[in-house]
């Protein structure tokens, strides 16, 4: 079994991966248009990992500053170059692709790569949502090495990294992208699909498509409660963004923009505060933490119902604040420490929605 994606599904898929991005994951618009052009009238099958055998899949996606993607456009050969490099280094041919990160634009990049390279796509990924760091790949959390892997950047430069842990890889990737084009395609080592999928989140893109379809099915005048119910989430509040505070914090070499968004609910006047990094991480209602990572926090424009990213939200926006259940893969106590609020330096116990 698998999920078939045709041209008319692309809109829903883009919205779906954006919602999984939880405010981060980069701008999906450009890759959405690229995917639409590659797909044309054809179709793409998202294969269930259980249905595929004898394939060596390589998780692939874009790393670095996704905002630079809009200025330094892809040349088109980056996916091929990274896949070729990792194949040559490992001596194993890549015969399938999967996503590094289902949330945001990396939900779409493996599909473009698969169309370009003519490879099948397995509907599994290493995050199930969007997360900022490489040590938050499910492979790393499950004890699987992330190396060897290959990086290729739009000017054509390719490097292969091996024999280093997730933190070391993070450093290598960051210094590489910082000194080249700002972003690069990362392809991990080709791995037998059974092993690759065992330590991955399954079915995220299918979920994204379902979320996108539910979003598309919403009536134009849907009430905030209707929206939450339609998307299978919980409404934290509806109101105006009172303040967006942003500041940089040094975090062991990697500086992420830390910030907070303050929304006052129109009805109850409850104060909703969302702590942000690259994604929306923690929501407090009247000072009480109610939802944290790895569950998904989504801020939608009240009028258009389009998701608003962390770097796009502004004071004065009229928004809905929603929580959607995060990937269940992370809900084990030994895994949640890697993606819970403490993993982002927020001294707060994870607050998860009731498992749906």
């Amino acid at each position: 079994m698998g999920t078939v994606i045709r041209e008319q599904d692309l809109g829903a898929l883009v919205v779906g991966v954006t919602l999984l991005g939880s405010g981060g994951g980069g701008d999906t618009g450009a890759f959405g248009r690229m995917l639409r052009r590659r797909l044309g009238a054809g179709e793409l099958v998202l294969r269930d990992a259980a249905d595929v055998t004898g394939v060596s899949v390589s998780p692939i996606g874009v790393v670095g500053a996704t905002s630079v993607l809009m200025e330094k456009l892809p040349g088109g050969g980056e996916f091929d170059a990274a896949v070729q490099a990792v194949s040559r280094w490992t001596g194993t041919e890549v015969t399938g692709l999967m996503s590094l990160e289902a949330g945001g634009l990396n939900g779409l990049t493996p599909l473009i790569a698969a169309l370009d390279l003519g490879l099948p796509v397995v509907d599994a990924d290493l995050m199930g949502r969007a997360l900022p760091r490489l040590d938050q790949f499910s492979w790393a959390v499950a004890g699987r090495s992330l190396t060897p892997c290959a990086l290729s950047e739009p000017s054509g430069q390719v490097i292969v990294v091996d024999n280093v842990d997730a933190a070391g890889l993070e450093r290598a990737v960051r210094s590489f992208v910082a000194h080249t084009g700002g972003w690069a395609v990362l392809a991990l080592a080709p791995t037998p699909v059974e092993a690759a999928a065992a330590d991955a989140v399954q079915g995220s893109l299918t979920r994204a498509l379902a979320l996108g379809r539910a979003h598309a099915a919403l009536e134009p005048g849907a009430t905030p409660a209707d929206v939450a119910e339609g998307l299978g989430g919980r409404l934290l509040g509806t109101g105006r963004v009172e303040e967006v505070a942003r500041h940089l914090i040094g975090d062991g070499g990697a500086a992420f923009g830390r910030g907070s968004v303050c929304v006052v609910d129109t009805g109850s006047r409850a104060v909703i505060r969302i702590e942000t990094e690259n994604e929306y991480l923690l929501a407090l209602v009247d000072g009480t933490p109610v939802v944290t990572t790895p569950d998904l926090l989504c801020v939608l424009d009240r009028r258009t119902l389009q998701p608003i990213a962390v770097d796009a939200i502004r004071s004065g926006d009229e928004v809905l604040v929603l929580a959607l259940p995060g990937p269940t893969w992370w809900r084990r106590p030994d895994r949640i420490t890697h993606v819970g609020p403490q993993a982002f330096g927020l001294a707060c116990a994870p607050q998860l929605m009731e498992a749906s």
Partner: protein
Amino acid sequence: MRDLAPSLAAMLSSPGWTNVVVLSAAADDGPRLTGSHVLLEVSAHPESLDGQLLVVLLADDHTDWRIDALISRASAAGAGALLLAGVEPLGRGAQLLAERVQLPVLGCSDPLAAHEYLRRVTAEPEVVRSDLVLRAVAALRRAGGDLTSVLRTTSDVLERPVTLAGADGGTLAGGPLEAGERTALVAALPRVPVAWAAPYRVDLPSGAVLIAVAVVGVGPVCWLVARLPGVVPAEVAAVPDVLSVVAPAVGERLALRRLELERDARQRTSLLGELLHGEPSEATRRRAVDLGWQLDGWHTGIRIGAEGQVDVAGRRTDVVEAFDAEGLRAVVVEQGDGWSAWITAVREPTSTEVQQQAAVIRRVQRRLVQTVDAYVGVGRVQPGPSGIATTLAEAGDAAGLARGRAETGRFLHVDRLGLAQLLLAWTRTDTFQPAAQALLAPIKDQPGDLVTTLAVYLDTESSLAETAAVLGIHRNTAAARITKIQHLLGVDLTNPDERLALHLASRTSPTE
């Protein structure tokens, strides 16, 4: 315990909390703070607080989300208010949340000190009291001899303004009270206090409190008043004790000052007395030099009279200050119910200078009337030691006239022109007017307006033609009237003495 709980507003104006700032305000005066509970970190969970202030010692980032969470927890635990280390403003979210749960949030660079102070005033009022009293006693021992230094010392100990007020609430020393507070204070205080009376507490509508303790000594009763901008019960209980300790010291300073004043005044008055009686002797001259009086040169005498009961010796400073403020170096001597003063110039002043000086003296009077109901006469410039007596005598006469003349601002200057005015003014006095009325009575109600005719006739140097022209009547009519006047009054208008008397009489106000 609860009756010791001060309101947040009162605490914010209290001395121990001067460096506490409001990060998120309370409605009205804010809650009553029943005590103070201290936490180390923002992430700590407070127990039930029951109106206590929650103090957090480590809170370096006021925009942290944990501040929001703490506000929420503190509110749930029933905190009266939250005090954070540091004075940076709150994030917008925390601000909105604090307003929503109505929890005032404060900031302070030294939260432990603020905690300690609140704990003391709410739990150990007797410690606050004994501490203040002991500090006052120790500070008084070191305080300088004068009154202002005693008041300043007290004010420093209490960290509150302290004023010495008269029975009318007027300021004798220290910072002045506001007009409204002065009225409220006077209304609350008894007219005749007793030495052992309990201190008075006046609660003002603004929420401030005045504590007044009577200072009984020589001279009129005055009040030592401390102003507390808000009610911190422990402080309100302690301040009367401190003031009661200070009051005798103030009384002593007042008595000493009074003694000094009286001694100086007597010295000056007796010396002036000698000067006014003829050419001064060698000894008198020497004493004048000792007092800094210049006997030679050109003197302008000034007499300042005061209506009502005025403490002439005590208020002399006001007079000297008024002259100083206008840039005049005048010798001021207490004399009778007012002051005699003179200004000495090295050379004879020109008439313009005399006029300018008179204008300045007028300004001095305007300053004085704010505190004393003063009337002023100024004499002519006179040379030499004996000139002092002459000019002061003129000034005295002028002052006597000025007293009844509100239309000139109760100010009269005897200069060349003024002398005629002086005479004229004299005709308006109570003694002359009845005489003038009596003199003119026979022609008063006669037909032909004889009083006016007489006045015009004398003004025109006894010219019948002029009189007729001025009055618009025929010369013969004028002649007939004059004859009639002489007949009715039984006087001869060619007699200079009688003519002068009638001329003066005709200048009395015709309406009288």
